[in-house]
């Protein structure tokens, strides 16, 4: 048995692309957890999509054994965290399982929005922060300035931060030494009633749900009956043990201070909620660990199979994804324009994109997705309150007393020369300015209150293009706020198309409607007859465009026996039509339903 003093539980936190996963790989390699041959690039990001995008979607954990310069062997539990704001809650739970965090900062880019957001989360959990400056071998590296930024902006000692290159394996051992030296060993009481924090879970087809936990107090053995304190569900433990890079290692017992897994023939991830506390049924803990909350969807969108016949495949795919992603919500919905599909709720835009991409790639589905929406509160004249995340369900204006929309607190970090341009952008998106802080002589943090529905379209793209990619951005939900909202309908050939409707602030309805009409005119091909495109608010037309009728589309000459060529031409045309939806008498390309996302203002 090893001593609890030789355990270190830590996470790595960083802004996206600053090298978190690469550093994790090097730590694994250096501790011999894996031989070079077993090494797969970025082993912790084992979803194809994660590796491609260079992001971590799900938290994961692994135990490393490191023989430090003081001669002792240490058990380092690395808990990987998702870097993105959408997964803030998961980050927060992962951090709650640690005593320290390695903060990776890019030597060229310095501190970014997510660096700060994650660091603040780490502070909230009283973690010891071990700063590390990465990519020091790159041409633009300015390690001294970044050290200064760490001291000025974050307020911790940056002087002794290891200067490393995770990519090229420079100074990695120094990171390990710092982890051992700076991060305290876990506390906790092995003899107290069991309290284990679930920070992640994973569905395995054979073992059921595998819960990843940090044991805070007490001990646990197979055969014991456990209870999830938030959900109340009970299970018999089948197996406990440790997470190694190349698999799981069963143990007789896990105890306070350790990071471990539990299996208990659990069928649904819904029963193993991240943030919940596991205790034993007999002599269990009286109180759960603090901080559990239900994860709530922030962004909603309709997802439809491009080919209506694949509705069942889409449902199966969503169910499979849901097994490993408790944050994904969906329910069946029907659209007149798009047929049968699902209304899906996501943590944020990135989460939405990831789910859509996984559906398309891993399940080979062609999708049509509708414009994303947030959840509005509709207070009706009869006093009842309705949550509306689909414009189709918005009541008639006469039934509405008033409406509320979600507001987020947005932090934008940018070189100071872009401040004017960003302020203009935020004001254009109905943002209200809170304040501005100078992070150093050149960099500024702008704080705004912004309606979430102004962010979910193309805010991030607009921000990037206005700042040549230099600004970074983070947001968190703040409150619901009364707002003057209307439903904007798009009409094709006089018929409203439900899948194109959206809810928008009254003052933004006209420009949005006009842009939408222009965009639709671009993407809808000429048809047999002229197609009027109209934008309407409450029955009043606010914008109009026209797709002219097709004038010529004919095989003028068709004689001579070779009809196969003509046939191929028609087949090709038919193939093109598969990307179309018949909406009333109009053929609408599927991209049209998503084109609202890119209105480029």
């Amino acid at each position, binding site marked *: 048995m090893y001593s609890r003093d030789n355990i270190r539980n830590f996470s790595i936190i960083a802004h996206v692309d600053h090298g978190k996963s690469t550093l994790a790989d090097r730590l694994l390699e250096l501790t011999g957890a894996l031989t070079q041959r077993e090494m797969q690039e970025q082993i912790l990001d084992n979803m194809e999509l994660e590796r491609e995008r260079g992001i971590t979607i799900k938290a994961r954990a692994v135990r490393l054994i490191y023989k430090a310069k003081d001669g002792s062997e240490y058990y380092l539990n690395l808990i990987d965290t998702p870097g993105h704001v959408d997964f803030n809650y998961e980050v927060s739970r992962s951090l709650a399982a640690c005593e320290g965090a390695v903060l990776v900062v890019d030597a060229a880019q310095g501190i970014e929005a997510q660096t700060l957001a994650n660091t603040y989360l780490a502070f909230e959990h009283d973690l010891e922060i071990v700063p590390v400056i990465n990519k020091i071998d790159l041409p633009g590296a300015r390690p001294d300035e970044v050290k200064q930024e760490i001291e000025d902006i974050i307020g911790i000692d940056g002087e002794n931060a290891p200067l490393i290159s995770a990519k090229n394996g420079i100074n990695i051992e120094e990171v390990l030494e710092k982890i051992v030296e700076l991060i305290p060993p876990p506390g906790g009481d092995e003899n107290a009633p069991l309290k284990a924090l679930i920070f992640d879970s994973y569905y395995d087809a054979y073992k059921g749900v595998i819960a990843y936990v940090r044991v805070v107090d007490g001990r646990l053995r197979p055969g014991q009956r456990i209870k999830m304190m938030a959900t109340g569900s009970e299970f018999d433990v089948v197996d406990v043990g440790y997470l190694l890079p190349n698999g799981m290692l069963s143990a007789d017992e896990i105890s306070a201070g350790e990071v471990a897994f539990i299996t208990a023939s659990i069928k649904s991830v819904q029963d193993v909620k991240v943030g919940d506390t596991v205790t034993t049924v007999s002599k269990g803990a009286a109180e759960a660990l603090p901080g559990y909350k239900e994860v709530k969807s922030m962004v909603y969108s309709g997802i439809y199979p491009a080919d209506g016949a694949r509705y069942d495949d889409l449902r199966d795919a969503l169910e499979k994804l849901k097994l490993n992603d408790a944050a994904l919500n969906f329910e069946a919905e029907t659209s007149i324009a798009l047929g049968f599909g699902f209304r899906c709720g996501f943590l944020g835009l990135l989460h939405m994109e990831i789910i859509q991409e996984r559906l398309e790639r891993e399940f080979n589905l062609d999708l049509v997705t509708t414009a994303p929406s947030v959840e509005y509160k509709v207070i009706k004249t009869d006093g009842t309150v309705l949550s509306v995340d689909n414009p189709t369900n918005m009541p008639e204006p006469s039934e509405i007393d008033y409406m509320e929309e979600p507001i987020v607190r947005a932090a934008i970090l940018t070189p100071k020369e872009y401040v004017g341009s960003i302020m203009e952008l935020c004001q254009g998106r109905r943002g209200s300015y809170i304040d501005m802080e100078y992070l150093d002589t050149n960099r500024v943090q702008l704080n705004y209150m912004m309606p979430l529905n102004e962010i979910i379209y193309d805010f991030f793209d607009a921000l990037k293009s206005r700042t040549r990619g230099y600004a970074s951005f983070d947001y968190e939900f703040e409150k619901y706020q009364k707002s003057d909202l209307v439903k904007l309908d798009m009409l094709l050939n006089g018929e409203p198309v439900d899948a194109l409707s959206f809810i928008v602030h009254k003052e933004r309805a006209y420009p949005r409607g006009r842009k939408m009409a222009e965009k639709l005119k671009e993407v809808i091909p000429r048809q047999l007859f002229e197609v009027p495109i109209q934008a309407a608010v409450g029955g009043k037309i606010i914008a109009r465009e026209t797709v002219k*009728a*097709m004038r010529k*589309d*004919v*095989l*003028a000459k068709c004689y001579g*026996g070779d009809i196969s060529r003509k046939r191929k031409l028609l087949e090709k045309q038919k193939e093109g*039509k598969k990307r179309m939806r018949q909406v009333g008498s109009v053929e609408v390309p599927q991209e049209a339903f998503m084109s609202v996302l890119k209105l480029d203002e």
Partner: protein
Amino acid sequence: MTTGIYIHIPFCIKKCAYCDFNSYSDIRDMSYSYGKAVRAEIKNSPYKNKKIDTVYIGGGTPTCIDEKILIDLLATVRESFDFAEDVEITVECNPGTADLEKLSALRSAGFNRLSIGCQSTDDKLLKKIGRIHTFEDFTNCFFDARRTGFENISVDLMFGLPGQTNEIWIDTLRKVTELGPEHISAYSLKIEEGTPFFDMKSRSELSVPDDDANREMYDTAVEFLKEQGYCRYEISNFSKAGFESCHNLIYWTLGEYIGFGAGAHSFVCGRRFSNPLGISDYIDFVSSGGCAEDGAECESDIDMMCEFMFLGLRLDRGVSESEFKNRFGKDMRDVFKMPLEKHLNVTRALEKDGDNIKIRPEYTYVSNLIMSDFIL
């Protein structure tokens, strides 16, 4: 069911700038050995039991080779097959390649329909598109043909030519209809890959009227020709009453045709197949006893039904529901439920006319949008 024979003559004096047909210039000395090979192919045809309603010799320019070859070919066909009593026998002809003597010989040999490639009456345009003749050559040819007794003459015209205006087009229509041919084909120029026009266009050296102007010319032709007594019976074909091209109707009504010669296509006994394209390849193929239908598979019912629809809808009269039922034993309304409902009831681009379903005339020139829905 009607059956036609098509014989391909892949020779020209000079290729036109827009032409992507299987035809070659400068090797007309091969025409004799080519004729021999085609005669051999005809004699060896496994379909000699078929009764023949139409014969069509096309090209290329059939009249640019020795007319004796053409006459021999017709004689060979006549020897090998039974002809219907009112058989239509067409030969294509280009002005400048057929004098009175040649036309007379062809008429006497039994050709009873002449298809003359006029294309335009504007000499500047004719030159621009690479034709070897003038308008005067055409009128001479036309009068010679009448003199030798051709009472069924078709004239090919083109619109949408580079630099052509609607006025020039109307002038062409007027000049041609004044001559009073029985049949007129009016085709929009299509720039095909592998032609000089295609290369010029990709180098932006060629500009043709845009779709709006092209449509105007088409509508002009339909209207003008109707006034002159020519009915549009197919997208690009017009005739005086009773002078529709029987041969071409075979293609559009999914009739049978047997093709002889280089690159010729056949559709017979439910199978589609074609001969080698090149002249030497074709001659070798025939002399080695090759058989184009080898390996050809029977076309599926569903493919045949689609063709029945998209070819039949080219005709002004459209497709007949009872004929469909007779031929396939199924109801057209069941097989093509979706596209029929869509276009009869929603877009209303199709209309019911007695037993037939047809494209409304105003949608003829965008018929691909409709026909492509009939590909299952």
